[in-house]
């Protein structure tokens, strides 16, 4: 029998999750475009571009509700455990896989990949941002970290799905407080896999190109 308090927290997390998805829809009319793959609950790793803290909630909001439960965003524990509210929203509403990216944690022998591989072992799908950090440059993407390659090597049957989030940088640029209600589109492309004997850099370039290829061309 589950502890009533746990049950209550889970119920609250569910409600908050729906509220976040509704808010995202109302403000940005966020829409998923499944261009290279169908929205079915298979185990996948969605890898996305990262320009703003709004990216992850956008991707999460436009997944079909039934899929949201099994898709876990990978996020930084130093951000999501900062205060009680975040510790509720990150781990409980979004069901985040928290990783510690801080150098001191790494020095202490903690491997951020362990938690990610563990979640995949359990059958969860993931949302990851392979650039590692928010992209503040004019380039479409920063060079990918090795994580995506390691995941692809360890789980060769899991689809790695390129996921382009358009416009979030204009909705909420870094340093601004008020989000603008502009239209956000999330495009899911054809999955990539690590080829037999494919080198790390070659694969990461290929994955990065597949992701950039989804960016809409807007003439300004």
């Amino acid at each position, binding site marked *: 029998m589950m502890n009533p308090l746990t049950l209550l927290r889970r119920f609250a997390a569910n409600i908050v999750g729906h509220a976040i998805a509704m808010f995202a829809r109302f403000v940005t*009319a966020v*829409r998923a475009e499944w261009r290279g793959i169908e929205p079915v609950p298979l185990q996948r790793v969605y890898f996305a571009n990262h320009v703003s803290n709004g990216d992850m909630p956008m991707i999460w909001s436009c997944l079909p509700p039934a899929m949201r439960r099994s898709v876990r965003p990978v996020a930084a524990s130093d951000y999501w455990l900062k205060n009680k509210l975040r510790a509720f929203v990150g781990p409980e509403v979004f069901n985040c896989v928290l990783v510690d990216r801080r150098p001191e944690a790494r020095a202490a022998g903690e491997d951020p990949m362990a938690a990610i591989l563990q979640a995949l072992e359990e059958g969860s799908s993931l949302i990851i941002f392979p650039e590692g950090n928010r992209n503040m440059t004019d380039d479409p993407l920063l060079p990918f970290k090795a994580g995506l390659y390691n995941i692809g090597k360890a789980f060769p049957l899991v689809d790695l799905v390129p996921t382009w989030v358009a*416009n979030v940088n*204009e909705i909420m*640029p870094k*340093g*601004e407080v*008020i989000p*603008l*209600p*502009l*239209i956000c589109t999330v495009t899911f492309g054809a999955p990539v896999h690590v080829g037999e004997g494919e080198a790390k850099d070659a694969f990461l370039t290929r994955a990065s190109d597949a992701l950039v290829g989804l960016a809409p*061309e*807007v*003439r*300004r």
Partner: protein
Amino acid sequence: MTNTTSDILLLFLGVCGILMALSLFGEILRAKVAPDGTNPVVETFMTRVHSWWAMVILLSLALLSGPIGIVVLFAFVSFAALRELLTMTSKSQADHMSLAVAFYIVLPVQYLLVWLGWSGLFSVFIPVYAFLLLPIVSALRGDADRFLVRVAETQWGLMIAVFCASHVPALMTVQIEGYPPERALLLIAFLVLVVQLGDLLDFFFGRRIGRTKIAKGISPKTYEGMICGVGSAMLIGALLAWITPFGVLGAMAMAGVASLVGMFGNIVFAAIKKDRGIKDWSHLIPGQGGVADQLDSVVFAAPVFYHLTHYVWGT
């Protein structure tokens, strides 16, 4: 039940009858031409009719709930249209605050002015005050790159999506002798009906007998389709003359002008979409595109219709 309410209901039932006939016509056409739903002309026609059903029900509910319903409905229409336009315009981070002001202050204030019936301030608020204020807010952030393009495109979006669109509910504030103020709700129904039905018939006739393109390379609209569409709008205007203060000839003229301006507005929007390389403004209305795609003609026609009503029949 007041006279106005019963007239709105009568109008609603009449439109439901037309939509029923159009749905039936489309179904027969589909069964004849391509029962598997592969003929693009038939399918486009059907999706248009379907979204018409949704719009008619929404507009009727707003009309029945009175002025507040109409103001709120069109405020949301403006919000959705402005969002579609400003997603496509030039902007930089320096414009973030001025865009926030446009969405969260200018838009609600404009509709508040409509609601209060302050027609003097309502007609200068965006063309003068927003026009002056927003570039100041942008300039203070110190980014001169493409500055004129940025502020001009933002202002254009506000003018169309908020200023022009707000002239639809503003029709409620026009004072006409011998025409009770609450009946002005029916003028809104008149404007929306003649413009949208004219569009629908222009689309239909254009596909059947259209030959001469009006604006080659921008829009599929043809002179033949437009003439038939405007002509039909005038006939519909004559049939609806009983809900207006215009008289039969006046109603025909007003319907014709509104429909014509609306169709040219549609061509203008097509030019913007072509320039930005998009087919539709958004995907808000399934199979139909965005709010701006559906209401471009009404939004263009609204200020002209409002001013003509005011000058010719207003007191």
